[in-house]
C-alpha cells in the first residue's frame, strides 16, 4: 500500500474513541493518513467531494451517531453510487459497534462485499492489525 493514496476514515461521535483509535493506528503504522469525523454526514460530504476511484478508503464506522448513523451512512453511499464499482473494492468498511446488540451484526451481513469486518468496541491490537491489512 502506498502512502498518500490510502486513507483511513474514523467515523465516530465519541471524540475519545476517535483519539484512541487514531493513536493506536499511529503506533502500529505511522505512515497512514487518518481523517476523523464526528458523524456520518461529515464523512459522506468528504467522500462526495474528494473521492477518487484510484484511492483506497478504509473506513472505521460507528453505528450509533447523531445526524447520520452508521447504517444511514452506508445506505447513503450506496444510493450515491459509491458501490457501483464494487469489483475495485476501493472502499472497505469496518463496523466498530459500541453495542453488543446481535441485530447490528445481522445487518452487517446484508452488505457482504462492502463491509469487511464487524468489531465490537474496544478495538484490540489484533483487531486493528486485521483492519490495517497487516494480518489475515
Amino acid at each position: 500500500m502506498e502512502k498518500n493514496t490510502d486513507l483511513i476514515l474514523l467515523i465516530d461521535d465519541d471524540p475519545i474513541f476517535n483519539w484512541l483509535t487514531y493513536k493506536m493506528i499511529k503506533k502500529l503504522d505511522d505512515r497512514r493518513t487518518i481523517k476523523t469525523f464526528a458523524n456520518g454526514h461529515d464523512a459522506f460530504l468528504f467522500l462526495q467531494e474528494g473521492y477518487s476511484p484510484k484511492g483506497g478508503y478504509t473506513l472505521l464506522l460507528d453505528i450509533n451517531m447523531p445526524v447520520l448513523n452508521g447504517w444511514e451512512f452506508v445506505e447513503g453511499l450506496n444510493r450515491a453510487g459509491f458501490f457501483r464499482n464494487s469489483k475495485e473494492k476501493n472502499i472497505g468498511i469496518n463496523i466498530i459497534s459500541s453495542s453488543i446488540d446481535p441485530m447490528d451484526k445481522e445487518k452487517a451481513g446484508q452488505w457482504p462485499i462492502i463491509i469487511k469486518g464487524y468489531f465490537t468496541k474496544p478495538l484490540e491490537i489484533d483487531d486493528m492489525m486485521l483492519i490495517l491489512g497487516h494480518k489475515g
Partner: protein
Amino acid sequence: MGPIYNGHIGEGTILVVEDNDGDFFLVEDFLLEKLRGAAIVRCGNFGDTVDYLNGENPDIAVILLDLHLPDARGMELVKDILGMSNNVPIIILSGYADLRTAQESLKLGVSDYLIKDDLNPEILYRALIYAKERNSYVSLLQRSTKMYQELFDFSPQPMWVFDPVSLAFLNVNKSAMATYGYDKEEFMAMTIRDIRPKEHYRALNDSIAERKENRDTPFAGIFVHTLKSGDLIQVEIYSNDIMFQGSDARLVLANDVTEKYNHIQTIEAQNARLREIAWTQSHIVRAPLSRILGIINLLEIEEGYSQDLKYLLEQLKKSGKEMDMVIQDIVERTAQIDGKHGEKH
C-alpha cells in the same frame, strides 16, 4: 281391595285399573292369551292406584285405565294418573258413554283408547305393542331434545341464537345472561348490534357479510362486545348455521378472552421494558466501559512500564472484561424473550 298379582314376564308389569270384576277378568284373559306369563297387577280404585304408582319400584310397562272408578272418574282421573305415570303409556278402557272423554284425553298425552265392547285379544295386544313402541321412540326424542337444550342452556360459555336477517336474538343461554348482564326478556328485545360498541357497527356488517361467504370454519374471529354495565370485553366468536324453530338462524358461542388478552398485553409491555433495559445495557452502559477498555488497550502498547504498573493494567483490563461479560449476558437473556432484538438504533 289390594292389588292382585298374577304371572311374570321380563319387561315390566301391566297395570290394570279396573273396579269391575267381570271387565278385569276379561282383560286379563285377553292379555294372557297373547302374552303368556305376563305380569298383571290390578288396582280396583284410585286410592290403590296412587299407592301403587308411588310405591317401591313399580316397573310398569303400560297402564290400562277404566274411566269409572268408585273414588274418581273422567278427565280428572286421567289428568291425575298422567301426572303420576312417569311417562308410562296409558291406554284408556272406555264404554261408549265415555267416548268423548277418551278422545279428549289423547290430547293430554294418553297413548290410545279402546272401546270395551269391541275388545278382543288381538286389538288389545296391538294397542299395547304400539303404545310401548311409540312411547320409547317419543321418550328417546324427548331425551335427546332435552339433552341438546341442556347443552345450550347450561353451557359454561355464553351462547345465543340470532336471526341472520334481522339480527334479533332468538335464544340466549344462562351463561350469556350472566356474562352480559341482560335477562332473557331484555335479550329477546335486542339485536346483536346492541352488544357491540357503536363504532364497531361497520365492522359488524363486514364480518356478517364475510361469514356469509366463508362458512367453512366456525371461528369468526376476536371481537369487542359491550356489557349492560358499559364495560367492554374481548370475545372469541364461533358460529354456525342452524335451523331454529323452522327458520335459518345462527348459533354463536362467545368465549370471553378479556383476561387472557389483558394478560398478554401486560406481558408484552413487560417485554418492551426488558428490551429497553437491554438496549440501555448494550448501548449506554457499555459505551463508557468500552472507552475504559480502549484506553487500557492503548496504554498496553506503550513501552517502559514498571512490573507493578504492568500488573495493575492487566488487572484493570481483567475487571473491565468481567463487567463486559455481565452486560453481554444480560443483553443475550433479554434477546431470548421473544426472538426480537432492540428496535431502536
